[in-house]
């Protein structure tokens, strides 16, 4: 089966005066049509840079130094052709045609994604008219329609509202409307619910799932929140220090996590089984220095399970299959199997 999006051995490095930060260091995954892939990691893990690479909007001085990002792009007559986004210049006409049309993105802070000087309607219409040949009045109709679809009350009236006139939850809905106006096949959602309250977060997640079904789009959902990832994803990628530590279908990952890092993350959130007022499990230490290249396991030294085994430090990083669709990058587990 061919994938809608396939990322192969992606490496994004930031070339600083002090040295090279390997923000993404050999990440591979695939996204299928209509499915959701969750990318979960702590701050500094490189999860956002993965999303930015796909749209070729990695901030300076970041560079994609290696790897492929293969997108199956519709060519208009029902077929699709594979293009490698790494080879497409970021400012080119081709890339601009892909952004918003094939791949759209929503962000954590919707205030930063809208211009404060234009109405949300005019911004949604602009996005639509950029990619398809529709008349202004027709575009406005479509904008009202999509605003209604994302659950904005009185859309024919609020289409003329400015971003500051909307609440945080409504702004997030408007941003989703803008991202979906061209019916993209892939939606990259970078922490879209982090700034929202839980009841509004639940509404937005529900909306995304419902729109995904309706439009058949794929979602790449980036978050630090394990619960949110568990809610929306079909498959999950656990990233740490720019590398994938574990990849599995969502049920497998949360029922039988294999990597010590995944297990440690899950333990550090108090659950119904955690006796109250008992110490929570922590992950000791901090992220390794990003300027230093680590050939072995980047979790070495913080891991509770390896006990300082030199194999973990020296064995080159490799994501190994341990079960059907379950991949782990832990030398201890991988050598055993």
């Amino acid at each position: 089966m061919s994938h809608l999006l396939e990322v192969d051995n992606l490496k994004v490095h930031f070339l600083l005066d002090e040295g090279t930060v390997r923000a993404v260091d050999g990440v591979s995954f695939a996204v299928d049509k209509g499915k959701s892939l969750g990318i979960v990691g702590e701050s500094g893990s490189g999860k956002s840079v993965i999303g930015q690479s796909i749209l070729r909007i990695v901030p300076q001085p970041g560079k994609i130094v290696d790897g492929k990002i293969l997108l199956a792009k519709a060519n208009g007559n029902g077929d699709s052709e594979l293009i490698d986004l790494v080879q497409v210049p970021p400012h080119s006409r081709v890339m601009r045609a892909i952004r918003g049309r094939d791949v759209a993105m929503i962000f954590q802070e919707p205030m930063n994604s809208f211009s404060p000087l234009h109405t949300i309607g005019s911004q949604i219409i602009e996005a639509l008219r950029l990619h398809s040949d529709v008349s202004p009045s027709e575009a406005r109709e479509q904008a009202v329609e999509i605003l209604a679809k994302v659950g904005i009350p009185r859309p024919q009236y609020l289409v003329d509202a400015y971003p500051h006139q909307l609440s945080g939850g409504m702004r997030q809905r408007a941003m989703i409307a803008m991202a979906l106006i061209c019916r993209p096949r892939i939606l990259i959602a970078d922490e879209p619910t982090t700034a929202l309250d839980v009841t509004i977060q639940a509404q937005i997640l529900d909306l995304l799932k419902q729109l995904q079904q309706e439009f058949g789009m794929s979602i790449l959902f980036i978050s630090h929140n394990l619960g949110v990832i568990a809610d929306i994803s079909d498959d999950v990628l656990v990233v740490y220090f720019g590398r994938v530590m574990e990849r599995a279908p969502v049920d497998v990952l949360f029922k039988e996590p294999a990597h010590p890092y995944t297990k440690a993350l899950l333990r550090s959130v108090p659950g119904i089984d955690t006796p109250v007022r008992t110490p929570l499990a922590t992950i000791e230490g901090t992220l390794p220095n990003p300027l230093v290249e680590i050939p072995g396991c980047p979790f070495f030294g913080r891991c509770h399970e390896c006990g300082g085994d030199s194999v973990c430090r020296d064995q080159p990083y490799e994501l190994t299959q341990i079960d059907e669709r379950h991949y782990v990058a832990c030398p201890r587990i991988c050598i055993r199997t």
Partner: protein
Amino acid sequence: MNSSPYLLEVQDLKKHFPLRRGMLKKTVGSVKAVDGVSFAVRPGETLGLVGESGCGKTTVGRMIMGGYTPTAGHIWFQPNGDSSRVDIGSIKPKEMRPLRRYIQMVFQDPFASLNPRMTVREILSEPLIVNKVAKGRELEARVRELVDLVGLQVSHLGRYPHAFSGGQRQRISIARALALYPKLLVADEPTSALDVSVQAQIINLAMEIQDRLGLAYVFISHDLGLVRHFSQRIVLMYVGKVVEYAPAGPLFARPRHPYTEALMSNVPTTRRDVTTRKIILKGEPADPVSPPRGCAFHPRCLYARALCSETEPQLREIEPGHLAACHFAESLNLAGCGALGCVI
């Protein structure tokens, strides 16, 4: 109920901010940020103050700290265990000064709450010097004791805040708050800016310090899971009012207010072995400038009836120690954590 006196007792506390419009800044109404909140904190216990943004939980914290003067109500504080309690909501600033050291605060953003131009030693020494608690060798000893208490090293004392990670900065904030031997710590979302693994470290530290020093906390948070883990009693706020006030166990086992039930069901879970039931609330929290008639929650409530849009429910005792502000608190059979399958 325990007959021991309360360290802090908040009674019918209100804070209304005037809403001014136009050239002459005429007062056209008021934002009822906090509108009749009551709760009490015993020495050494943690009270969780929970609610969504805009519900007034931070404003309550600020009033306890003396940052805002209440519009109405009392904040009784009794730092010394005898019966000399004072209302810090209406006290004169001069009289407040000797009491201020007993209430300290830890803020959400450890990057904004520490002066970047002061070393850790200076940050920790300042309250001790200003309040004339220690000087000279005694001062240095206390500073060292503080860094040790929060799990930092003496070698960190000469460094500036920028050299520390978010979690370490929050430790410095906690050390600063502990410098003057407080009785009560108000912590406003102290771990929201941190990664989960670091959050766990800070929560562990807070519990350890509490057990060691017998401190009381007012823990302000939107994270129900953390609050459940950490607090003995919980106050749930919605649009400036208390909707439910109960010990943690009964609150999660059997909530008595529909808002509590919905909030619990909305906490995303990683559990796979249980089927979860989500209650998706319609709409958004009411505007505190013009809250709806009757119960402020009724436009979003699944169980609302005619009465709810007419009469405002009063906070009342449903079971011993368990208070809720819902007309139908007794008759509704709301799902607790077990029935919802939620992770918290």
